[in-house]
């Protein structure tokens, strides 16, 4: 079932947590709500589940308005951050809880619970209590409990937070395969970009109760639309530029970023949003920066800026090389994890004119009238 949030607002003690938020999640989609703590991610899940009542706005699951229904009437499954298993019940009884509430026949309960416990590889642990399980097993038990009732929408609140890397990977793969098999609409909350990339069909980035951008993971990580999203997904290469001349296909711009000793002229693709004399922020993904030794030949079609190697740094996914281009630092992806430059070595920082894109807009899954900026930006 699809999930639609229509102009949802929610405040706690006068502090606005969700601001007129609208979101449509398609049927069968694995949708990740990504953002820093306090962004409103968990509140959105609670509003969908009916555990928190919104101050205004409406919630639809499919065509059914559920705004005033109790959590139990919404046909959702919820996997909580700390699993929230019933500590006084065995794994089997935890999983059977929802069916027992619905007074399902005992034989059917046994059949269904056994089936879902085997799906999450917990058949052998079914008589154990939650205290006797490992973190990964607890996670699986919570997932089985949510799935047994066969909900229309599965909600997951930072479910992998307390798992080790190896267990996370295993559970992530299992989760993806269960999702593909059951085609259940899933809303998954995380603050971890890597998790979002690996599981999501679509990602919504939340900041201060508003959606900054809705996108597929690839688009989000290579084409963030706002400075916040760019920084949140780990792209630090944000250039403040001043368009000097605009031709048919390209524009000559001057980098005016803070800290830069001398303005640097580069060529960028001509985006309709560029206006001569109007300052704008452009962003470039570290993967799109090529470092060349000073004596190496550089393709004439590429921009070429002289820089000095500073250091190597690591984010959660890969190594990055930090290059000083005269008072400003750019981050370039370190190919193959190999750092083959010396500290203080002079290099060419090269990138294609279309490697940069403007940070101008917000959501992409919004009414057409509001998408003009995005459409203009990426129309070829």
């Amino acid at each position, binding site marked *: 079932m699809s999930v639609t949030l229509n102009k949802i607002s929610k405040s706690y003690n006068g502090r606005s947590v969700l601001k007129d938020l609208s979101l449509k999640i398609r049927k069968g989609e694995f949708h990740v709500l990504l953002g820093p703590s306090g962004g409103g991610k968990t509140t959105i899940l609670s509003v969908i*589940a*009916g*555990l928190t009542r919104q101050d205004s706005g409406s919630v639809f699951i499919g065509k059914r308005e559920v705004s005033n229904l*109790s*959590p*139990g*009437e*919404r046909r*959702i*499954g*919820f996997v*909580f*951050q*700390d699993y*929230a*298993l*019933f*500590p*006084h019940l065995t794994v089997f009884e935890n999983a059977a*809880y*929802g069916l027992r*509430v*619905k007074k399902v026949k005992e034989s059917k309960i046994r059949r269904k619970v056994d089936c879902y416990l085997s799906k999450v590889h917990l058949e052998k642990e079914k008589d154990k*209590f939650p*205290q*006797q399980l490992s973190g990964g097993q607890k996670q699986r038990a919570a997932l089985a*409990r*949510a799935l047994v*009732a066969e909900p229309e929408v599965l909600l997951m609140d930072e479910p992998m937070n307390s798992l080790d890397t190896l267990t996370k990977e295993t559970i992530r793969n299992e989760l993806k395969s269960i999702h593909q098999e059951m085609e259940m609409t899933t809303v998954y909350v995380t603050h971890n970009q890597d998790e979002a990339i690996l599981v999501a069909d679509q990602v919504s980035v939340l900041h201060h109760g508003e959606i900054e951008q809705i996108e597929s993971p690839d688009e989000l990580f290579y084409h963030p639309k706002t400075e916040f999203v760019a920084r949140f997904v780990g792209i630090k290469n944000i250039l403040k530029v001043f368009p000097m001349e605009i031709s048919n296909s390209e524009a000559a711009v001057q980098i005016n970023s803070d800290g830069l000793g001398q303005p640097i002229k580069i060529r960028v693709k001509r985006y309709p949003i560029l206006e001569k004399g109007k300052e704008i922020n452009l962003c470039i993904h570290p993967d799109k920066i090529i470092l060349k030794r000073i004596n190496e030949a550089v393709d004439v079609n590429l921009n070429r800026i002289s820089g000095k190697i500073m250091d190597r740094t690591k984010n959660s996914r890969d190594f990055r090389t930090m290059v000083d281009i005269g008072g400003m630092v750019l981050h370039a992806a370190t190919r193959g994890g190999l750092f083959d430059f010396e500290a203080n070595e002079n290099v060419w920082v090269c990138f294609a004119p279309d490697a940069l894109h403007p940070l101008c807009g917000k959501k992409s899954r919004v009414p057409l009238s509001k998408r003009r900026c995005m459409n203009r930006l990426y129309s070829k």
Partner: protein
Amino acid sequence: MKGLSFDLVASIMTGIFVCLIVFPVFALFTTTSFGELIYQIKSPSVLSAVFISLETSSVVVLMALFLGIPTAYFLAMKNFKGKEILDTLVILPLSMPPLVAGLALLILLGGNSKFGSVLRNHGIDLIFSKKGIIVAQLFVSIPFLIKSAREAFESINKDVINASLTLGASKFHTFKTVLIPLSKNGIYTGMIMTWARALGEFGATSMVAGCIPFRTETMTVSIYQNAMSGEMNSAIAVALFLSVFSFTLLLIFKLRVRGQTENERYTQ
């Protein structure tokens, strides 16, 4: 060295505290013979006081469960205007001198008050009756159950409750199948404390129910009556029974809770 001297001071203080409890109880044992004790306990007046106390305090525990658990749930789970006031009201009987509580109940329930008259017209006479004892004991002891159960409810992870709700359970079903089982130790503690307080209640009970032998004379009232009239052997017999009974009750409870905790630890 400093840590060691602090430990020594703490040990001495603990020793003084133990003496404070043990010596008076020991004094009770040493002032009478075992034969005399058995003889006194078998006497009809002492047996009557024991039965009245056990009967009324048991009813009080049941009534406290019936009234106190929903109140504890309400205070633990709901946020509302005036919660602080209700919270203070709940524990007020703990700080109120029992004689004051007894006087207040006497004025409210006595025949001269409107409420007392209404009750009497409906055949409910609380003053100088066992029902009066129950009301007085309930008044002073119910805060123990509410406080203990409330703390137990509050200690439950809210997401466990939410999990039950999202799985389709009603609030009552969640209360019955999740909150009560997970709070049972807290509720047992509250029951034991309530029972012990009701058994030991004297001031409010004597004000509301008086000291009518074989009718409203509880163990504590009996101790007072006998001690004041010079029947020390009888007073000591009841006092010893009350002390041993309370001690046994608390010990059984402690062992039970410890057994459960160890069992839970073993399964982890």
